[in-house]
């Protein structure tokens, strides 16, 4: 099996503009930012959440805390997937009780990651509200989960994969659509 890059979905400046827009949307729709906090899902949701928080500082100096959540232990595919992903540390330096949380991830696909993330969050307390922000929504949901803030929706086939590459992790910055070819 080979991997073939089919197209580029976003360039670095497009990613940047999209995150700026998402930051504005979240602030606008939140009805106050006093209890607002972002939770980046390990791995690529983390730099995205930090960048959205940075963009929010440019909007009337809104300063929102950012937490990090690793969902590995909450996955539902333990018996199917071997080997498991390496565990990374979660770091949520604030109480989640009564907080207005926005989960941030790179790609929304089946919805299972978000299901796992919500289980993880509820082990920490009882947030007042949880919303979801993703850079790319590629469809194919297997859970009744939708994102409130979407960078871009993309039609994809089952064999295709969306790769979000961010400079903090991948040394390059773009979103590409790749396909598996036999």
């Amino acid at each position, binding site marked *: 099996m080979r991997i073939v890059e089919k197209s580029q979905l976003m360039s670095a400046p497009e990613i940047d503009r999209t995150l700026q827009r998402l930051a504005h949307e979240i602030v606008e729709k939140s009805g106050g930012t006093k209890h607002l906090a972002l939770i980046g899902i390990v*791995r690529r949701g983390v730099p995205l959440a930090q960048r959205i928080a940075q963009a929010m500082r440019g909007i009337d100096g809104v300063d929102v805390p950012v937490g990090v959540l690793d*969902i*590995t232990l909450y996955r539902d595919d333990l018996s199917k997937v071997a080997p498991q992903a*390496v*565990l990374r540390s979660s770091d949520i330096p604030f109480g989640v009780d009564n907080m207005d949380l926005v989960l941030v991830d790179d790609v929304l696909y089946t919805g299972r990651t978000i299901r796992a993330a919500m289980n993880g969050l509820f*082990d*920490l307390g009882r947030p007042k509200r949880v919303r979801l922000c993703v850079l790319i929504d590629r469809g194919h949901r297997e859970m009744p989960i939708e994102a409130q803030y979407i960078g871009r929706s993309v039609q994809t086939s089952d064999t295709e994969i*969306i790769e979000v590459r961010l400079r903090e992790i991948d040394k390059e910055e773009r979103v590409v659509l790749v396909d598996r070819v036999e």
Partner: protein
Amino acid sequence: MRTLAYRFRDLLALEPLTADELRFLLDQSKPFQEIQKHPLKKLATLRGKTVALAFFENSTRTRISFGTAASRLGADTMNLQAEASSIKKGETLLDTAFNLNAMKPDCLVMRHSASGAADYVSRHLDIPVVNAGDGTHEHPSQGLLDALTIRDRLGTIENLNVTILGDILHSRVARSNIHLLGKFGCRFTLCGPSVWVPRELEKIAPGTSIRCVYNMEEALKGAHVIIMLRVQTERLDDPPLSANDYILLYQLNAERLRLANCDAIVLHPGPINRGIEITPDVADGPQSCVLEQVTNGVAVRMAILYLLIAGASESGTHPALEAKPKESANASD
């Protein structure tokens, strides 16, 4: 991305593990340390899995710690206790293990008074076996939790002066400590009555600096870490020393502790004999880590059970080339 995984099916000893593998086990314990602070500590990660706890030798702390680790991962446990078991009726170790295995656990955690018992059983079973202490050989989870505690307190486990005090000859804890910390360049001073600290111990880990010292004041000088071992009072009946002489020569008190490095830490695997090997003011003092060790024990054992039952690796291949089910193809990692 380099491939890093725990490559063994079992955890029988720390001696055969490399520094990278040991560091991996310590790093994988970190997320579980955080879970100990959560208001809800129970995960569903190993739901439906069963951990058999077979303690052929008495244990309170280690058995409860492994049991707690299993239940916080969502696994069930089956318990075999030496006192009430058919071992008393003459069943062999292997027969007992086969019978437990026939109840289909996903992992066997065992303690036994014979060195090599866990290794022996693991050769006959197709499930992961965790050595929770075998005779005078090793106690790997204790070695790991000690290293985690040291790393948290001192920020490193590299190139430290480690003094181990007490009955080292009979101590599996000391051996696991030496085999782990020795791989990170730590230097060991072993101290206690000479029958408990024979010179042959200097050769148990080739490549590691180990010296036997019979004067406690000398042994403590420059120590970054002091690991106390329980004086097995039952052994004092066949005395190298009377209890009073032991206290006089080898008890860790505040005055002696001042001979060590000023921020030295004190570890003890428990149970503590207050007033014998350690004074209460030291055991409860700011340099003591004994309760952190207990908390970290649960985290380390959660990591061990998770890794052995679920397996873990960091793959360097392209995610799409792995035969993963659909939902993980775009998982965060």
